[in-house]
């Protein structure tokens, strides 16, 4: 249980990336907070665009890709696995950034 509460406390500390921009912070803290929020937002927008491009590209090129994916060959197998990994890495980064922006963050 100790571990669970330790992680819980850590999570609460870093739950909201914008929470550090509280009015009572001063000097260097303020400067860092102010630059951090837009950077996070830009990152989120970039990842959203990349994810949309990936999804759009995938579904619009299905006519070409589908025969490869269902070719019953090792190449087809590798193409499926590589595509799934790519989706997961790009979209996964977007999902994490989105949740962080919303103040929902998995423990670190």
């Amino acid at each position, binding site marked *: 249980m100790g571990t669970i509460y330790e992680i*819980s406390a850590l999570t*609460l500390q870093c739950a909201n990336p914008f929470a550090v921009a509280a009015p009572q912070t001063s000097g260097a803290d303020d400067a860092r907070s102010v630059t951090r929020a837009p950077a996070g937002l830009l990152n989120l927008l970039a990842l959203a665009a990349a994810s949309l491009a990936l999804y759009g590209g995938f579904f619009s090129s299905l006519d070409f890709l589908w025969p490869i994916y269902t070719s*019953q060959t090792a190449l087809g*197998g*590798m193409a499926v696995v590589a595509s799934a990994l790519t*989706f*997961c890495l790009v979209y996964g980064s977007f*999902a994490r950034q989105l*949740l962080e922006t919303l103040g929902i963050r998995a423990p670190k």
Partner: protein
Amino acid sequence: MEGSVDLVGAVSFIHVQPVTVLALLALGFLGGMLSGFIGSGGAFILTPGMMNLGVDGAVAVATNMCQRSPEALVGLLRRRKLGHVDIKLGLAMGFSAVLGVKAGVKVQEQVLATWGKAGSNLYVTVAFLVVLLAVGTIMLRDAKRAAVLGLDDTAPSLPQRIARLHLPPMINFTTAKRRVSFWVTIPLGFATGLLAATIAVGGFIGVPSMVYIIGAPGFVASGTELLVAFCMGLEGAFEYASQGLVDLRLTVIILAGSLIGVQVGALGTIYVRQYMVKLVSGGVMLLAALSRAMVIPTYLHDLRLFTLSPDLYGALSVASAVVLYGALLAAGLVISTAMVKGKREAEHARSAVAPVAAGEPY
């Protein structure tokens, strides 16, 4: 391809309509949430969920394995930073799990080639039913015991006996804090892989075996299982995809929901007691088993072993979907409520401590 069978001809891929996309997104989100909450094995809901949408059993298993591998990788990277992954234990079990996956894929191929998709649907459903009933009952029993005794979780006694088995080579699993014979991990990993290739969820055997047989702490077992799941998923996805059985469209739509859900669910585990995790998981498993049991007559009908009226056939299919999706929605609500409640309590406890700390001299 000597000796191979044309499995693509034996199955069919569903037509993806807007409503299917919405259902898959919801399924992915709630399945991911449950997966993050349980730590592993939560993907058990995805295979029956897809089957309820009309996806063939073999395709549902293959597609689930394909989305499971990258999802496990994301979870693995995160949990490794938290020190929840025993790499040595994961690789030892992953090695035999890959062999188990190979065996499981062969069995699935044979079932599909011999009895067609109706036989494959029945095979996947019966395997699900047996495993869900067994694991769900054990989890609910454990949760009840822990709640009655006022414990966070119950401690198993079998690991002490297993640790006394000195069969070289003995391996020190440092993160799991156990010293166990390599030979103990072989059947456990193989069974995990075999189950993964059958129903796309190996965590049902992987996590309990690491906890109840090897004696690893629950959070290490669920973290380490992600490494095993990644190895199995990679192998299973490749094997199934090489047979043309993976529907990548479904994989990427489910991933869109599950990658968000898994992080929300993982956050829930830090605010909720272990027995509560078991209570929710066990409950959903038993309802999923009920949902699967409802459609068995329809598969028997498809195999011409049983005759159902069209009305009853349709009613059973709808009832099965309602029970499964209802169970998922209920679990999502319970997890969210428990998370909000737990977070409030933690914040309250923290604010109560803060004034005391603020009054202390530097």
